[in-house]
């Protein structure tokens, strides 16, 4: 039989593929990575002075207090920034739920400042775990952060500037500000009076 003569190669080949590409290959990469690039291989974890992991430099988190830089809205999990449930909103541009959500968020942000609201401040990201905001979004939050911490606007602006990444080669990707890096730097410079 034409088909049956292929039975042995098909089965054995599948086993060999599993061993070589499914076991040896990922384990070799894991082994070398854990030795050569342990920080990246384990998730770019950031720790506090006591060694407690406070988050990943690459994964966004919720920040609600006025003294912190706030991230974008998030559709990951029920309360946002649930890193076990990465997801976008998947709302289409004409969806009424999208319009209602953006309207509500815009009202809150308009109460806080009269500056125009950049699009990223009222939209959810594709992953729901976007670690960044745009420089315009960050700049809009400076007065609130400065007031809550009793800092000068310029000092907050300088911290944001240091956490801002420009496009690679000047034109690949977009400028972005890492929210967690800013908030860690803020806490280091001027801890909030009441930490729960």
């Amino acid at each position, binding site marked *: 039989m034409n*088909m049956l003569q292929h039975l*042995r*190669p*098909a089965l054995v*080949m599948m086993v*060999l*593929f599993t061993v*070589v*590409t*499914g076991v040896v*290959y*990922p384990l070799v*990469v894991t082994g070398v*990575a*854990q030795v050569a*690039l342990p920080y*990246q*291989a*384990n*998730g770019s974890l950031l720790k506090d002075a006591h060694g407690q992991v*406070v*988050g*990943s430099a*690459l994964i966004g988190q919720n*920040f*609600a207090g006025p003294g912190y830089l706030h991230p974008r809205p998030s559709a990951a999990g029920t309360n946002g*920034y*649930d*890193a*076990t*449930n*990465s*997801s*976008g*909103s*998947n*709302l*289409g*541009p*004409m*969806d009424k739920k*999208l319009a209602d959500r*953006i*309207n509500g968020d*815009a*009202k809150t942000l*308009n109460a806080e400042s*009269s500056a125009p*609201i950049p*699009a990223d401040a009222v*939209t959810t990201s*594709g*992953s729901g*775990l*976007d670690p960044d905001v745009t420089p315009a979004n960050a700049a809009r939050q400076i007065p609130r952060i400065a007031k809550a911490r009793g800092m000068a606007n310029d000092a907050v602006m300088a911290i944001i500037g240091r956490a801002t990444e420009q*496009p*690679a080669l000047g034109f*690949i*990707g*977009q400028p972005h500000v890492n929210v967690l890096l800013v908030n860690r730097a803020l806490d280091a410079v001027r801890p909030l009076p009441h930490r729960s």
Partner: protein
Amino acid sequence: MTWQGWAEIAFTLSVTIALGWPLGLYMARVWTGQKTWLDPVAHPIERGFYALCGVKPDEGQGWLGYASAFLMFSGAGFLLLYLILRVQGVLPLNPLHFAGMSPHLAFNTAISFVTNTNWQSYAGESTLSNLSQMAGLTVQNFASAAAGIAVAAALARAFAANRGEKLGNFWADLTRVTLYILLPISLVLAFVLLAQGIPQTLAASVDAKTLEGAKQTLVVGPVASQEIIKQLGTNGGGFFNANSAHPFENPNAWSNLIEEIVMNALAFGVFIAFGVVAFARKEARALVAAAAIIVSSAAALIYVNETLPTPALVHAQHVVATPNMEGKEVRFGAPSSSVWTAMTTGASDGGVNAMHESYTPLGGGIALFLIKLGEMTPGGVGSGLYGMVVMAIIAVFVAGLMVGRTPEYLGKKVEAREVKFAVLATLILPTALLGFAAIAAVLPEALKGLSANGPHGLTEILYAYGSAVGNNGSAFAGLTANAPWWDTTLGIAMGLGRFAYAIPVLAMAGSIAAKPKLAPTAGTLPTNGLQFVLLLLGVILILGGLQYFPPLALGPIVEHFQMLSANR
């Protein structure tokens, strides 16, 4: 739109297409069994593979033998993966204690990865153990890509043959493509991606206590090793639900650029390798040109649309209404997301770095259109090439009808038998897509899964079946696809899109191989110049455009005009 945005799009596409040449020249050496500098390491492993499988690599197979081997290998892969997914609950490397998949989800997932589609009805981080990701999915990322490239190699040999019968040996092609191309490139680039921040660990999660005192559980795993082959093999199935929008799959501009280049360069490389092996370098260049023109135009059009104002932003007070950032990451913005979307839907990759469902109607509509053209711009690795050759054969046939002369392509007469097989292959896409979509559009069981009504809901249906039958795998992800109707019909659509396409192509290859190789005469239509590129573009666009214009008009096009009027 900004000049940086246009520069990024142009740069990404040019580098990708240019890299097709070195990759293709190398691939041609691998297809023809020539020496490579990897021989000292790879050759002994290759010999071991043949010995254990009991195959003779030099023993050529006719089209039926080649096709049977391809089917048997895919069948074995399907069974093994189905089994792993069903019983992962009792297998090791499952620290988060995920249960086995349901029968319909395991069926859908197994067929999805075996057919190089990588449609995902599940969320990886809350469904799959590290063992399933590595020994299940990563394996099929290699296997399905290698099998696709093997079929392309067989087609190239058919055009090179002069009254030949054999298309090569499937097992040898499969082994060589994996050991000399896919695995070494993945091994090197996995570390480049790792250095950008993609995790690679056997741990499954880390708990963090945020600065505000909340708990956040970070899911990690062996991501980098899977990420690179996901892109290189135009697979597209993410480790995480959010795919390459997830910062752990795609942390920055560099990782994004590498993933983009990798997902199209090898597919273009197959075009070049085909040209070398079939003694048709100039003709292969024409095929590359046609693919490049379509994917580049699509990228530009998507970028234009994604910088249009959208109604929800326009009508909210004091909001800057552009770009359309819903579903996009700040580090990528509109340009990186737009060029990625064109490349992933042009290439049957299906990985996403932004959510297509939240795109503007025409931004998402162009992605859908690229899928419907049949995944050949440049298409999946291997499958894109044979899709494009099928179009070229239809193009010379159409030209032949105009002048009343038996057409030729690459020195082979194209006669009734070849045209029948070519048309049979191209009919699978519209039949399965429109057939299933028509049923789903009126079936309450199917409509339950939709997240939107009206034109957007219709686009969700069209996109799902297009993505499945085109073996793309991206989605309008609002659709809740993990239900018996969707899992099963999408699974069948994926199987048809892969095998009911590749088998007629192999049959066509068998018939082409048996013909004498003719020298071109004064009456032969040149298939290497601008004239042929335009003819080919016409055939691709008319086949894609005419077949799908009515549903596209009712979906994305109508929604576009609704959006424009809502912006006022």
